């Protein structure tokens, strides 16, 4: 079996019951992706698959062969943090750091949804061609990622700062 993870082809033979989360953590030692509940409730395991965010704990590894998987380890380049990563540090968008990889992948995926003008539950005009982001849009769209330390204000600040500078686009 083989997967494309952070641009690299990785091979392993695993139990068919293995989740994408356990594949990353146990087979490939990509432990940046976290397990918080193993039932899709907390978002700590969020990764990007072809740019879309998913809960890796609810995904069977065998189903994701041939897709492009990006984990937190794949966000930065060798020399530069991803702008959202840098903004999380600047705006203190974390405390213990455990939910952070999921928050970051979720934020990057969510920014893509905004770019594609996908509406959310708080979008006033669902038929609008363009989505104007605001803090409520960010908070609504990030509500699938729990942070028990309570860094929510900092997370929103960090994402808002990233969007405002438009370097992420």
């Amino acid at each position, binding site marked *: 079996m083989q997967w494309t993870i952070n641009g690299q082809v990785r091979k392993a033979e695993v139990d068919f019951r*293995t989740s994408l989360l356990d594949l990353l953590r*146990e087979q490939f030692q990509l432990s940046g992706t976290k397990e918080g*509940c193993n039932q899709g409730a907390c978002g700590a395991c969020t990764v990007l698959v072809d740019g879309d965010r998913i809960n890796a704990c609810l995904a069977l590894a065998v189903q994701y062969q041939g897709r492009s998987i990006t984990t*937190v380890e794949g966000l930065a380049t060798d020399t530069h943090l991803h702008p959202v990563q840098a903004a*999380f540090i600047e705006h203190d968008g974390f405390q213990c750091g455990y939910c952070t*990889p999921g928050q970051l992948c979720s934020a990057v995926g969510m920014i893509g949804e905004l770019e594609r003008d996908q509406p959310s539950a708080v979008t006033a005009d669902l038929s609008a061609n363009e989505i104007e982001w605001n803090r409520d849009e960010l908070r609504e769209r990030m509500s699938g990622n729990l942070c028990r330390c309570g860094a*929510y204000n900092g*997370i929103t600040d960090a994402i808002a700062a990233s969007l405002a500078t438009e370097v992420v686009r």
Partner: protein
Amino acid sequence: MSALDKRRSGDNQPSGVALAGDYWRPDGRPDPLSEKGRIGIGAPLSRVDGVEKVTGGARFAGEFTFEGMVYAALVYSTIANGRILTIDRQEAESMNGVVRVMTHENAPRLNLPPVFLMSPNGAAGDDHPIMQNDRVHWNGQPVALVLAETQEQADAAAERIHVDYQAEPAMTDFELAKTQARQPDNVLGGPAEITIGDADKAFEMAAHRVDAIYRTPRHNHNAIEPHALTLAWVKEDGSEKESERDGETLRIHDASQCVDLAVASLAEVFGIDAARIHITSPFVGGGFGGKTLWQHQILAAAAAKLVGRPVRLALSRKGVYRVVGGRTCTEQRVALGADADGRLKALIHSGVVAMTRHNNLPEPFFQATKCLYAADHIRLSIDVADMHMLANTFMRAPGESVGTFALESALDELAEQLGMDPLELRARNEPEQDPTNGLAFSSRHLLEAARAGAERFGWAKRPIQPGSQREDEWQIGMGCATATYPYMRMPGAAARITLTGEGATVDIAAHEMGMGTATVQTQIAAARLGLPVERIQFRYGDSKLAGRVLAGGSQQTAAIGGAVIAAHRALVIELLALLGENSPLAGLTPDDVECRDGGLCSSVDASRFETYEQILARAGRRELSVETDAADSAELANWSMHSFGTIFCEVGVSDVTAEIRVRRLLGSFDCGRILNAKTAASQFRGGMIMGLGLALMEETLFDPRSGRVMNPSLADYHVPVQMDVPEIDVMWTDIPDPHTPMGAHGIGEIGITGVGAAVANAVYNACGKRVRELPVTLDKLL
């Protein structure tokens, strides 16, 4: 003129830092770092571990590996009291990849664990034997442990273990248990009942009275990192084969807020020398009181011994609810009697909490009431109702978080009866000294914090009449409540400072669970030693490092501060001893010098200066290392020491659905000197957000028939998410406490206090419904 006098005269910005000394004495000198204008102190430095945390490079306990490691899964009891008749492990043991099933029939012999607050080495939640006999003490107790080559195999096999029990009568109904409540021996080492005057009589005679019962449910910490550890019994090099077992060291990667205390407890459990146990915990994915010693660490170590292989044990989220205790439930009576001016004549705060006979933490809900208000007559008491349940434990602001809900709700009720602004009622009862122990406050600026907060929040716009302000379907209301948490500095702290020409390393067995410890202590060490932060390395989370420091009780900052102050003095004494006659500093004593610009300097003559590098080089030393114990916490006997604050909240309550939305939240705090504005703001906000959870949604559902936790998951136990949390404004007085290291108080727990009442009071102001039972859910408003 001495340097200190010059500073006081204001004509000279402090640049060097003199040695701190006797801040704990009544006539002592404050820590020089507490002075205004200290470079680096209070600066919003970004976290020193930020890059590791945003790149996935931070490695947590369940992410380390050992060669030949096996994975563990636990099987939990389904009865609350009784015996195991049989455990059929045959099917599980025949399954693919299963290495062994451990039960009470084959587990290694273990001693009883020493319990927190009941034994000097106690880090454990309770003193039950751990898989040593057939007894079951709570619904969810581990009864078997499966080891397999993969986690999937272990989990699958755990499902196939069949256990037959003989259930015995169990006390699992709090309503029944509280009819047999008893007074505990002590509450946090103090009396379970405090009486000043005759509060019951004074209450009966008071002109204005409020007498109500408030209830708070069980809570679970729910750190996003479930408890996990990876461990191995490691053979020491060169040990003789037949005595290998004796030569083994237990090496644990744990998620811990008490590495040194956990070592001491494990040494007792396994009957080995504490030097043979080594715990590291460089990153902890949230603690909040829950990451101490519970059965899973002991079972993992026992299982590793049984099969002679390293073990990874990562609790499932459900497993955390079964094995790690949470906050217990409380039922509190608050009775306030006041005169027409609102002055308290009687203050009664009493009640009952659920506990077990195997631990000693009666949720100390009266802690805040001890220090907050002047009253002529006071009676405080806590009783416990013994239940068959997992031992309860500390959770963020144990006592104050739920106690302030009751007390501060009652104050709000009294204010309304008196027709008085709730803030004014509180101000009228501001005590001159601690109302229950008579000590002077070391630093209390609650009224300043309240006034400043009220102004920024716009408290003056609060509608007087409940239900009188609305926007469409939303009824709008405001509420406030006082927040408080004690200052503590526990014994046992020590620090090692190692100085080289390049910089300094500070080593201490303390913890970083997200509070910002590593960052703030780097700033402090840099300021104290006169070095840039880049030249400081702060090492922690390792039981082999100096001292015993608990990341709990909001005391870590002070405990580390006290230890570093002591080590700093020892370091300077040693440096001065290294000076030759040719040094410009020759002849100076420790109290004649300051640390600045990477060296020592005379505090009165800036021309007498030498860098650490020069001092070490002349003495032919590459490094200088000292380890010293912190001074005793004498300040706690001299003063009543607490942090304070006022929480302001604005809610909207829908008159269609009764949905409650928190629109605005502000915390104005008086917590001594703030050491890092960025991480401090996060600590305050984080506590307040957990307070929103306590106020509006958090409740561990405990089945009174079976004693089983019914919502052991993040899908069913609701914690605040982004959309529940408004922009939270935080502010602080920044007035240093003259009697603490750095003039600081701990700030990790005060944020959660007062929030429950501030929200409930705002809900009352919005819609006129008084909810006295947490959480304030919409069904209680319909």
